[in-house]
């Protein structure tokens, strides 16, 4: 009897396990829905209050700015504004708005809505002036109507006035080259005045130094004009968007877009392999081969929007003060070998500090292909003869999109510099907390490995950040470069601005305050049946035209 019971129990247990395992695939069947794997939850759904990519991903699908970047490029194109004109020496901007556009709550998009949004940002007070709340507003507009926080500057924005329902005039206090291109950033997307007021978007407080939004707008009522409407957000599970059937332009091809947070790239890859997501972002470069090997999957590339470079630190008594030594460094770095070997096929050799997709990139810059013989010749005619001793730093415990394997980059560069007449003393430090701080304060040797990922599609975000003014990281004084970049940043005329950045890039690569060596593509993994999913260079994903199956 006991044996029978035991056997019966085993059969039942076995059957249960079998049932529990057969046909249990996590794959979804309902279509047309696109499930997209992101790396984390958004911070808030009000894009004016965030600066992280996951929050922007939702905003880019649900909201629109006056202008936008053509999908997959960094070309500024009309969106909610059909055309624009600048006058008053670049301090007055007139926008003619698209007609017949409605916010998701049914209210009309018009000139007064534009002014409401601009004035909302400008009139923020107290906790909203903290950088943890309004990072991008402060980066572009410098200050508010009444600055409550120390360190804020004179605001760039002066006023906004509606001239009829579809014409709006924005006045600035001074010329700015960044005002117009920055309008593509989701933080400056147009949001429904009615919804912002109704759901207390402007209620917030600082808790132990961190901004906390108190209204429900930022959590459950984001209201824009985009091709998708917000449906729900379950923290840790998903953000669900649905197709905006009243969209003014090409309507989305999918009914639902679900963005789910999966913290690790391995987790996202496995979710794709198992059919739990249709596509995912931030695929690790080393996973590209696995994805390509699967007949049902594909890799989508995002144009490079970053740069890896070797800092050259100048200063009192430094051999790097000598241009010939800096040139020798540039010729002594085997950039092609590093990119070929350690970037898993997603890297491109950089010839200047801005990615090729940005305006101002120039093919006429001085190029420094690996040439150890020339490097030795330069050194022998310089103030630092062979072997020229240099301290070279690299970070540990980190992998960055522009630098997947810093230690190997360093080893290869170190070897090529040694072959070029340098005597390299290696130094390393953990990325957190010391390395970046040392690089930025200029105490990480003569040379160090570092890089930058762009925030928005403007050259000032690259070369302006590094070289517009004296910077302890590089510690050089070159008024010509500073002047050129300052003029470019303030130049409101687009064509003139592009020209200035071209000149600046040529000057920078001649002067060599650092040596750029790689731009890296970032990758998305997707099912082959997902089509027209466009990865934008600035880190976003264009879902409007995407189809599944």
């Amino acid at each position, binding site marked *: 009897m006991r044996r029978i019971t035991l056997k019966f129990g085993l059969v039942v247990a076995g059957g249960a396990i079998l049932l529990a395992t057969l046909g249990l695939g996590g794959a979804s069947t309902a279509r047309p829905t696109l499930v997209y794997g992101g790396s984390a939850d958004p911070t808030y759904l009000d894009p004016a209050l965030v600066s992280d990519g996951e929050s922007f991903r939702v905003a880019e699908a649900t909201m629109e700015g006056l202008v936008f970047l053509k999908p997959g490029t960094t070309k500024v194109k009309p969106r909610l504004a059909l055309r624009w004109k600048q006058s008053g020496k670049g301090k007055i901007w007139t926008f003619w708005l698209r007609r017949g556009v409605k916010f998701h709550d049914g209210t009309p998009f018009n000139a007064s809505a534009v002014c409401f949004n601009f004035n909302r940002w400008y009139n923020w007070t107290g906790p909203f002036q903290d950088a943890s709340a309004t990072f991008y507003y402060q980066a572009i507009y410098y200050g508010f109507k009444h600055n409550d926080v120390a360190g804020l500057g004179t605001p760039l924005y002066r006023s906004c006035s509606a001239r009829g329902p579809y014409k709006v005039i924005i006045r600035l206090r001074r010329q700015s080259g960044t005002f117009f291109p920055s309008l593509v950033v989701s933080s400056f997307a147009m949001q429904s005045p009615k919804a912002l007021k109704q759901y207390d978007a402007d209620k917030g407080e600082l808790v*132990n130094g961190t901004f906390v939004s108190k209204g429900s707008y930022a959590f459950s009522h984001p209201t824009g004009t985009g091709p998708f409407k917000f449906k729900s957000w379950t923290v840790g599970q998903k953000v669900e968007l649905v197709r905006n059937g009243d969209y003014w332009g090409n309507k989305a091809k999918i009914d639902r877009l679900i963005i789910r947070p999966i*913290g690790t790239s391995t987790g996202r890859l496995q979710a794709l392999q198992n059919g739990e997501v249709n596509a995912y972002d931030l695929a690790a470069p080393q996973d590209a081969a696995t994805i390509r090997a699967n007949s049902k999957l594909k890799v989508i590339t995002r144009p490079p929007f970053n740069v890896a470079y070797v800092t050259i630190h100048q200063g009192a008594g430094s051999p790097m003060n000598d241009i010939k030594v800096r040139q020798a460094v540039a010729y002594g770095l085997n950039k092609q070998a590093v990119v070929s070997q350690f970037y898993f096929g997603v890297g491109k050799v950089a010839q200047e500090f801005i990615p090729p997709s940005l305006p101002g990139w120039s093919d006429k810059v001085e190029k420094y292909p690996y040439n150890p013989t020339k490097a030795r010749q330069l050194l022998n005619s310089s103030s630092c003869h062979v072997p020229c001793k240099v301290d070279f730093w690299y970070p540990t415990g980190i992998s960055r999109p522009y630098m997947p394997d810093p230690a190997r980059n360093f080893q290869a560069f170190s070897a090529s510099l040694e072959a070029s007449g340098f005597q390299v003393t290696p130094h390393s430090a953990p990325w957190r907390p010391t390395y970046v701080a040392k690089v930025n304060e200029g105490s990480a040797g003569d040379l160090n490995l570092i890089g930058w990922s762009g925030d928005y599609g403007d050259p000032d975000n690259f070369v302006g950040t590094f070289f517009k003014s004296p910077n302890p990281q590089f510690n050089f004084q070159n008024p010509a470069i500073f002047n050129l970049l300052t003029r470019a940043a303030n130049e409101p005329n687009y064509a003139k601005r592009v020209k200035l950045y071209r000149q600046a890039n040529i000057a920078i690569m001649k002067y060599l305050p650092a040596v750029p060596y790689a731009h890296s593509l970032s990758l998305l993994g997707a099912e082959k049946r997902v089509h027209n999913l466009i990865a934008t260079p600035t880190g976003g994903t264009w879902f409007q035209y995407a189809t599944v199956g």
Partner: protein
Amino acid sequence: MLRYVVRRLLLIVPILFGLSILVFFWVRALPGSPISSLLGERATPQLVQQYRERYGFDEPVYKQYFKQLKSWGRADFGTSIATHRRISEEIKQRFPATLELAIAALIFAGGIGVPLGFFAAKKHGRLFDHASLFLSLIGISIPVFFLAIILKYIFAVRLGWLPTVGRISVLIETKHPTNFYVLDAIIERDWNALWDVIKHLILPAVALGSIPLAIITRITRAAVLDVQNEDYVRTARAKGLPPLTVDRRHVLRNALLPISTIIGLQTGLLLSGAVLTETVFAYPGIGSWLRDAIFNRDYPVIQGGILFVALVFVLVNLIVDISYAIINPRIRYS
């Protein structure tokens, strides 16, 4: 009994106070800071200083501690620096997930471990006994994260039988009134959702429950071996009672005390030890939350999260102690 419970509850205060000191200073002894994590390449000396002032990190550490202690005294755990979300809100959302996973792991560990240990003892010295010992040795030896990765790779990625991440498929629409998804699905009578939630629990629960399973098997085996040689068991057998009755009434019941102790202790460990499992399965519980916080050096979350887990651990142990008296009437607390 009541006095004992009250005394134990009061003891929680100095325990948490001591732990708050340890956690507060340990977190600050870690290399890195939330600022370097937040700013990355943008961490210029000026910006770092601004952020230090904003978060009060420029003040002496003891002042920071007392400030923090005042907040905790008001039951205010603060706000995450990385996500801007209230820690109490995060706990409310994530703890049910961890508790659900811990219960599933415990059901797996206890449901298999107790019978396995019992039969191993009954078949003492035979192949079944050796095999169970060998399996439990493997269970204890394999690191949880490694087992989690292997299980996920075989049953989800290769075979596609089970999901790889999360608590529920994102395409399933169901309400979550309690945030205990199994319970929610039952309340909503959504059997499709229930089945889906169970599917999502299987692999993490097996991975998380592997070590408790091994321990429970061994403890049960040892306890049963001890008890079945007691005089009262021999007497019961001599009286001619059926073997099943002897096992059920005399052996298993008396062996239950050490087993319940170990299950209680394992419950506390399961609640606090799900960090790796939750990370591998992107399971949105307390463990993966703490892991992210440690990675981001998110001081308020690390501190608040650890104190909360400690509180749960202490309370679970108290419940275990009280349960002794219920299981074994010979134990009296005074």
